[in-house]
């Protein structure tokens, strides 16, 4: 790998993106050679490594040029397998920027927040390897490299669930691995078909370069649709979309807390990001063609996830099902294929990472204290642990999509976009928002309200260190809820470029804009979050959006 680094292009003085991938990878290797004698070192080293990645990401975020957010920046390219036209190409644009930032932030926090229950060496090594893989997925601009990273993340997560999980962990881990790998099996064939058929059509050498393949658009319509389907299967499993979502509740419930946080926080986004970057960008025509089906599946996921979540007895499983619902919003926003929907979906990816990641952390801490996650056995925790309850409340409300908190902006935009494009599905999906409020508030009520009996009365409140870990989450929840503009203005150029790409390649594509052709301005959005009207359900918000 070092030779790859040495051969990096001269465009950037330092291959910062490669460093983002390679640093945690090397950290994982370093972990293997650390002596077993001082177990406390493992956590510290893991934190330092992921902290270094976070630091580098912060630098990237600052240096990121928002005026050219529609282009890939910091591009870093080297030959990998020359004979097959495979290269190690990494790049960052407005679409991937925030997911990379989310990843970089979530890992050190997770490492800090949770102790390994046993064998810390392997635990932190797997976590770092996972970080390398996830970073790679978000940065890869080569189909081969993307697939490598997309698959490699399975291994650490498999071991994290299998070795450090609870309950039916072996079952959950195997199910997770096999489901995801099944999806990728089709994608691998799709990737190869894309590369080889493009080479056959154009007469050029085989190349796996994403930008080249996307700009070339050499495939016949029907072929592209088939290949898009093969990609969509892989991403649908990963998202997960109904009906291939069944691995998710099992994996989440049995995973260790860190596993759940990472799984919900970043790994589910590999699917939605994949749909965006490798689905829509590579196959614009097929995306338009299949968009109604994906919106339908997303909507089913929203309603199904919400109803299933309502009926859960296990708090962690409830949050897991709520993820299915939230990811549905992301999908319908994305496949609205307009500026609002795409930005909303993208924003919601980040939001979901923040709020659900935090929720899983909090549930994990409840489990650490009470050794149960059954809602029926919990109750009245508000009295012994008021701060805990308050933090939980805020995070939960952000997940519900309360205006003023981050969840609202993304969900609103996604629904707005979907409403313009697929009105009836959007209306059905909007009821999911109501059900989300129902199951989360109801769960909150049962867990935190009422009289505290038995062990519940002894529940320890949030410690200072736990509080400190929550601060970044809460800060992000409020900042992105009240002032999302800095985030959105870096996303929008990339999203607009994507829509232009669709318009340029699909003949009778008519972007269904939320406000009839007039693009929603970023400046309008700055005010959106400031609405303090907590009673505004999304239907009424939709009407406002449509009228204004």
């Amino acid at each position, binding site marked *: 790998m070092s030779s790859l680094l040495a051969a990096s292009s001269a465009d950037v003085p330092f291959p910062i993106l490669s460093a983002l991938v390679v640093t945690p990878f090397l950290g994982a290797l370093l972990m293997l050679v650390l002596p077993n004698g001082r177990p406390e070192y493992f956590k510290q080293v893991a934190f330092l490594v992921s902290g270094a990645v976070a630091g580098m990401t912060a630098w990237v975020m600052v240096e990121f040029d928002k005026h050219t957010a529609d282009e890939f920046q910091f591009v870093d390219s080297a030959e990998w397998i020359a004979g097959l036209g495979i290269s190690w190409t990494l790049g960052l644009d407005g679409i991937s920027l925030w997911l990379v930032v989310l990843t970089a932030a979530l890992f050190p926090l997770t490492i800090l927040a949770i102790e390994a229950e046993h064998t810390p060496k392997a635990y932190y090594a797997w976590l770092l390897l996972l970080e390398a893989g996830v970073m790679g997925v978000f940065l890869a601009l080569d189909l081969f490299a993307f697939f490598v990273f997309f698959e490699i993340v399975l291994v650490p997560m*498999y071991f994290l669930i299998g070795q450090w999980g609870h309950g039916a962990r072996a079952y959950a881990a*195997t199910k997770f691995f096999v489901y995801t790998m099944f999806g990728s*099996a089709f994608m691998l064939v799709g990737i190869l078909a894309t590369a080889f058929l493009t080479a056959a059509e154009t007469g050029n050498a085989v190349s796996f370069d994403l930008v080249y393949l996307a700009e070339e658009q050499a495939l016949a319509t029907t072929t592209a649709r088939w290949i898009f389907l093969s990609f969509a299967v892989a991403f649908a499993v990963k998202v997960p979309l109904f009906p291939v979502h069944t691995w998710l509740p099992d994996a989440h419930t049995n995973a260790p807390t860190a596993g759940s946080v990472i799984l919900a926080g970043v790994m589910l986004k590999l699917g939605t990001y994949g749909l965006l970057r490798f689905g829509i960008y590579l196959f614009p025509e097929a995306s338009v063609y299949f968009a109604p089906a994906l919106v339908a599946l997303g909507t089913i996921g929203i309603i199904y996830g919400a109803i299933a979540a309502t009926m859960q007895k296990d708090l962690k499983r409830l949050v897991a099902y709520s993820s299915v619902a939230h990811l549905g919003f992301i999908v319908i926003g994305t496949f609205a294929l307009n500026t609002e929907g795409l930005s909303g979906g993208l924003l919601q990816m980040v939001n979901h990472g923040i709020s659900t990641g935090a929720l899983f952390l909090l549930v994990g801490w409840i489990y650490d204290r009470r050794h149960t996650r059954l809602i029926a056995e919990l109750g009245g925790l508000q009295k012994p642990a008021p701060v805990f309850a308050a933090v939980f409340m805020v995070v939960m409300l952000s997940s519900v999509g309360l205006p003023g908190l981050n969840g609202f902006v993304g969900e609103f935009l996604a629904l707005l976009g979907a409403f313009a494009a697929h009105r009836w599905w959007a209306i059905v999906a909007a009821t999911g928002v109501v059900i989300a409020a129902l199951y989360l508030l109801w769960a909150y009520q049962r867990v935190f309200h009422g009289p505290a009996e038995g062990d519940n009365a002894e529940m320890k409140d949030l410690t200072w260190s736990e509080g400190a870990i929550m601060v970044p989450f809460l800060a992000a929840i409020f900042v992105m809820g009240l002032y999302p503009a800095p985030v959105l203005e870096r996303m929008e150029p990339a999203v607009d470029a994507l829509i232009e790409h669709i318009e340029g390649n699909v003949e009778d594509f008519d972007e269904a804009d939320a406000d009839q052709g007039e693009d929603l301005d970023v400046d309008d959005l700055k005010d959106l979050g400031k609405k303090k009207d907590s009673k505004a359900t999304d239907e009424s918000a939709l009407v406002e959006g449509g009228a204004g």
Partner: protein
Amino acid sequence: MIAQLDSTVARPEITWDGLLPILTLGVGALLLVLFRSLMKQLPKAAADQAVPVIGGVTVIAMWVVGGFAGTDVPLAGLRDGLGDPVFFLGLLIMVGLGGWFAQYLRLSVDAALTVMIGLTSLAATWGVWTDRYEIDGAFGLVGDQLGADGFSLVITGVIASAIVLVALLLDDYLEREGMAGADMYVLMLFSGAGGAVMASANDLIVLFLALETLSIAVYVMAAMHMRRSESQEAGLKYFVLGAFSSAFLLYGIALTYGAVGSTNLIVIADFLEQNRLVEDGLLMAGMAMLLVGLGFKVAAAPFHAWTPDVYQGAPTPVVAFMASAVKAAGFAALVRVFVTTFADHADDWQPAVYALAILTLVVGSFMAIVQRDAKRMLAYSSISHAGFILVGVQAASNEGVSSVLFYAVAYTFLVIGSFGVLSIVSGEGDRGTSLDHLDGLSTRRPALALALTVFLLAQAGVPLTSGFVAKFAVIGAAVEARSYWLAIAAMVTAVVSAFLYLRIILSMYLGQAEDDAPTIRVPRAAGLAIIVALVITVGFGLVPGELDDITRDAIPVLIAAG
């Protein structure tokens, strides 16, 4: 035919330097027999002293033979090398290191000699590749009965590497099972020489002879464990079914001869290129028989039935050899006969191979799941790997051939590593091969567990391992040949297989070892073999470019009869 008896026929040109890779194996085996029959029992002291000497000699032999191979003026190279003080000093240091290393590994004399022969053959292969093949291209050997092309050289290299690694595994195994002696090594070298000839064969008769040399030695190796009835059973079963398949092969050769009028591959290929047979029934039947015969050797379903029993019964290091070298040689023959020779009839045999591939993939992966014995599981998984390689053969293209080669190389090291770990874990008498014996391996021997995990994940085709790149190449070839459904079927069965590998991994990491589980001793030599396999597996996974280039340079060609 009569002309051949004429005394005016020129003596065939042997091309000794190009023959060295094969010759080293065959002559090495003979010398080993000779050496052991002269000195049945080495005195302990002499044996102890011999090992480091052999280690040192290995380095010199590699240098000299590697230098001779492929060059017409080897003496100049030797003179220049020895004349250069820096080089000379380096050579001395290497000799010392070789001696020390052999000592450190605590090899027996027989194992050390086998490793020496294998490494020398590897060096010779390298020499022929760099000094002759890369410059002049393919050339004929022994009056063009054999051909040295990139393809045969890579397969020879694979076989030589397999011999070295398996010898390292065998060393301690034979000691443990009370079977110490040179016989196993000699048989393995003979078998390897047969395999190398098979990969280079330019004539169906030569191919058959080589196949028999390869097979008969392996039958005996499978049955070598005298005190294990399973081993005897495996040997007999392998022999009977192998003989059966040889009959098919021979019949196929006869029919092909009947249809075409020659057993020489280039004559067959030329004939088929220039003529369209009006009545091609004979040729079709011949091709079918050849496919059946070779299908047995590579364990393609439905000709796979011997594999699980033989793999389970045979001594574990022997299984490693069978799954790597023997299979690679079998596929070499399959590629040379079908893809290269019957290239103009690809439309006829491709559907058959398509069906074989799908059947092999499905049988291999699904049957593997229901097994309880790790060796049997890996036997079935080796069947499904054969299916993957057949997917590459089916493509009938250069892309396909190089993917087959890549797969063969990657799989050789994977499977030797996997069976190497099993051989260490299973303990005396190969008893502990059931899944329960792997329980809790991660706490008993974390390094072994990690190594086996990497090998299994690589077999499952997880990225950053050679196994993934191999699958990628094969599927790429299938997609390029527009065999989409075959590609998808292969990938889906790979997922099914992954389930199996995960089961083994789960029992290593989640299972609880019984308290009275025997301690596992990792012999140095076997440990080295596993480390080498591990490094190659991960190395080709991270930077596959080099191997990819080599396999692209190694498309088989037929040598025109001179």
